[in-house]
């Protein structure tokens, strides 16, 4: 496609230092960028947070830090898998019970499930305005994100040889690594199904399959690319960045397709479930410059607040063109799994 442009060799890992989320920064001015925690009032009173696991250790560290900074806050945290907590919240709601003030989830589809039940309170405009477009949702605040990427081995293939359209990989002669049983991959195929339709997705799966090697997980895909077992892979961006952190000379670089499921950005986020002032205050803490920088530097997550540096090794967000997909629809995995089974991919 002519309009597509691939972020190729210029994005080679290590060549780019920390970059800025440029979109919106200049246009909106200081009022809409990240606040420092020093500017926030102390939180107090009782607050119950349902915390969906995923980046478990990291989120625990954030909870501990917020607790330490707010000794008068009686913070109760209930942990569990995001989908399971979402179901619990819906059950509690149907039973007329309100226990949680906040739902903080690694998984946007779980947030969508809760929002669809009418359980969420709208976010204050002052909070939404700080979040990067197009992630300014009414019923939940995006906290951090991850992007689908194409890790490739520069010793086996040059950036110029890579398609900038995810659908074109099916017609290429590249040796591809993928992890069909992995949840992130299935969400990616779901996005493709929503964007391109079932028939084109079926053709894509059938087209890629003959020159694809399956791995148990997406870190395995990145390692296979690095070893040269395959030319390219499909994986979330952070595996490659983490590997490069420990092995700066690793033979793997990142490329991104343009405006398709291949560069889908998915987000973790938090939804307000009550009008407890401490709940809004807690969300403000998650969106501070300090927390956003912590997520970007420690987990290589994409910071969702304007003006916070991107993880080293990623291009600025205004140079990535993710597709517009209603993230909460990514939970609809059943037709995706059926398609993957039908084509023998699973």
């Amino acid at each position, binding site marked *: 496609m002519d309009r597509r442009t691939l972020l190729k060799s210029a994005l080679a890992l290590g060549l780019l230092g920390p970059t800025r989320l440029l979109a919106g920064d200049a246009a909106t001015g200081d009022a809409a960028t990240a606040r420092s925690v020093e500017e926030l009032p102390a939180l107090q009173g009782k607050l119950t947070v349902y915390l969906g*696991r995923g980046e478990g250790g990291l989120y625990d560290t954030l909870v501990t830090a917020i607790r*330490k900074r707010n000794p008068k806050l009686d913070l109760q945290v209930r942990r569990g898998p995001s989908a399971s907590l979402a179901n619990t919240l819906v059950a509690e709601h149907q*039973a007329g019970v309100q226990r949680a003030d906040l739902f903080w989830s690694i998984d946007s589809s779980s947030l969508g499930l809760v929002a669809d039940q009418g359980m969420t309170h709208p976010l204050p405009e002052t909070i939404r305005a700080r979040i990067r477009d197009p992630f300014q949702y009414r019923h939940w605040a995006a906290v951090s994100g991850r992007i689908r990427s194409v890790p490739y081995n520069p010793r086996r293939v040059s950036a110029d040889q890579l398609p900038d359209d995810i659908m074109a990989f099916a017609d290429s002669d590249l040796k591809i690594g993928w992890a069909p*049983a992995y949840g992130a991959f299935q969400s990616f195929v779901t996005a493709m199904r929503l964007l391109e339709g079932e028939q084109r997705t079926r053709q894509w799966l059938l087209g890629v399959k003959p020159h694809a090697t399956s791995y*148990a997980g997406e870190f395995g895909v990145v390692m296979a690319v690095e070893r040269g077992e395959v030319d390219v892979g499909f994986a979330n961006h952070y595996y490659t960045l983490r590997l490069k952190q420990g092995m700066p000379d690793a033979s793997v670089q990142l490329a991104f397709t343009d405006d398709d499921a291949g560069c889908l950005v998915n987000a973790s986020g938090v939804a307000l479930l009550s009008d407890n002032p401490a709940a809004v205050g807690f969300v403000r803490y998650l969106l501070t410059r300090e927390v956003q920088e912590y997520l970007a*530097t420690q987990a290589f997550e994409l910071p969702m607040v304007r003006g916070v540096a991107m993880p080293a090794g990623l291009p600025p967000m205004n140079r990535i063109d993710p597709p517009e997909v209603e993230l909460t629809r990514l939970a609809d995995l059943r037709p995706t799994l059926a398609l993957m089974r039908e084509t023998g991919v699973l």
Partner: protein
Amino acid sequence: MSRVDRFPRKTLFAAKTLFAAKTLPAAMLTLGLAAGTAQASGDLDTYAAEVEAMTATLDTLVTEHADQEGVDDDIARLKQQWSDAEYHEALEEHAQVVYPLIWQAYGGLERALEQDASHREVVAAADQVRSALWQGLGGLRVAYAEPAESGAAVQGDAATVTAIQAALDKALGEYYEGELEEANELIHAAYMEHFEGLEGKLIALDPELVEGLEEDFNATLPKRMEQGNDGQVSKLVGTMKARLDKARDLLAGQEKQEVF
């Protein structure tokens, strides 16, 4: 005086928070019993008995209405039961959203009787009361189940590794019992809910270790369990636990980055 005010009650509750759900899924009625405290379970038994008594009164009322007998005594008994019930107080405190639904249902029944509605309409109104009462009980069961984790119980990396190893042992036990599905669920949960929280730090320290464990959790161990070779399964679990020991040692040497 509004219709609902004609029933005795301890507190008037604003009905503005009424929500749409009118019926409770059957599963909800059993939710939370196992997880509640002993005290809460005892209370729930009391509440269930009180709800049973009120629904029995409703049954009598419906039967007598069908026989065209007077039902004033039944209504009076129902009022008294509702007024005296510990269940009533518990609802006010713990299930405030569902509480007004019961008032609303009572109002509907009283209105039907006052307006000499057909027997079918009276039955429907009584069913609404019955449904709301059970819904309230389900709400209390949910409210008493699994209290939120409190305080500073944050798991460190070493404890997380230990929890993963314990889950592997438990999965092995399930496998020996022939419970393959349970074993796979434990393995999957250990990976998704615990190991993924550590792998970010570990990748930079020892990528091959992470790659090996990712494959063990997601492919090799489930496959070996399916093949049913006990010796190979237990050997692999031992290998994984040794790899996790190594992970614990690697993580122990890591400097902690402060957030604020």
